[in-house]
């Protein structure tokens, strides 16, 4: 769970500071994924390739402390199959 401070422009031009909770999740596009497994080596708590060469997502929700490793997994995917989205 991460807490993001969101600036929202008010109608009078004044900024309204609001605190919003956003949960980040990782998603896989299985049409693109070919099970190369680089994600598993960078974020083994999240991904594992099974015996049939298919990617299994072990967990989707990303905590603050895990964000960097999942970002590396996303960047490391040769098929651009991974994305981090707000839940």
């Amino acid at each position: 769970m991460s807490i993001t401070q969101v600036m929202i422009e008010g109608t009078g031009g004044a900024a309204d500071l609001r605190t919003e909770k956003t949960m980040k999740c990782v998603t896989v596009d299985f049409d693109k994924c070919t099970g190369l497994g680089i994600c598993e080596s960078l974020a083994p708590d999240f991904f594992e390739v099974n015996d049939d060469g298919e990617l299994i997502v072990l967990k989707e929700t990303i905590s603050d402390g895990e964000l960097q490793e999942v970002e590396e997994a996303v960047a490391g995917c040769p098929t651009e199959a991974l994305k981090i989205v707000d839940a």
Partner: protein
Amino acid sequence: MSQADVDPRRLVVVGASLAGLRAVEAARKTGFTGEIVLIGAEDHLPYDRPPLSKAFLAAADDSGELPEVPWFRTEETMREELGVDVRLGQPATALDTEARTVTVGDEQIPYDLLVIATGAHARLLPGAEGLDGVHPLRTLDDSLAVRDKLEAGARTVVIGAGFIGSELASTARKRGLEATIVEALPTPLVRATGHEMGAAIASLHELNGTTLRCGVGVASIEGDGKVERVVLADGTTIEADLVVVGIGVIPSVGWLEGSGLMIDSTIGGIVCDENLWTGVPGVYAAGDVASWMNPTLGERQRMENWTAAAEQGAAAARNALDPENAKAYGTVPYFWSDWYDVRIQFVGSPDADEVLLVDGDPAAGGRWVALYRRGDRLIGALTVNGQTEIMKYRVQIMKGGSWDDALAFAEKRRIAHAEKFAASV
């Protein structure tokens, strides 16, 4: 954004393939607001290379469509979202590190920060110039030309039994075409996987109906305007409509002559430190063209794979923009290759004291796993159809895991796999 917020520095990236693109994207991701110029020798926007010897060469699908070009980003994304001045179609020809300029055509392009990602170009076979149907396989244009020939049902001869040539032969076989591979060395893939495993992997060709001739050189490639046959050093003649030359690549450093950058005389490429810095102020290198000290394995390496190009491109740009907080780029190298219906994966270094097959049997086909030992440490792992195994070893190598632990782990996995297989029969 007001003018005062714009970073006054200009980042120039030479080389518009994966490493260059990732350098640009990483620079923007760190919040860099300055000007970025991306220089590409080819006419094309950045595209993904691994499919060029695999999926892109496949036959048309049921609807008659050939595979699409694997572009990375649209021109609009490059210009508008990434804010890059993309200059395509002309290579950089000189670097002046005193004046801080890169020469492209008649123009001197000034830089404050430079990432060199010019990659490598295919090694050509002397004497085969000018014959239609003889191609290297490195660029999109190469791949398009090769695909045309495959579409026409070409009898295919591949020179060089490396990964690219092997993937091409595999694709030709999948299309039902005759394919022969000729390799000058007695054993293929030695540099990438070591002696024992090179021979074992090469056996996949015979299992799949591709003729592999090792230890024999090419005497000549003959034809009248277009290629007709390949003559080997032992006198054998192989009829051919397509000859693909896959005898390796040469780092593209020729344009740097006189620049003062140091070129690695052993493994080629621009000599860099752990941070991908060339030692010249503001100048970094990434991808196939970079020889760098890999702190994770404790050896100087130059990679020719997707993962290194992607990661080094990003790391070089980040370090160039913020040299005081530069981070060393360390990795357990990884590459994969798809042949027939087999996936070959390698992690680590093949420079080992011992290579041990820990699961499966290459002669029987199917799945197998080999581990590489250096001293008392696990230094590499090779799997064939071992997608569920390979990355577990990559993690172990990253952590500096011991050989004994790796062997114990392998044995546990082997037993578990055997039990699972027995239960499923």
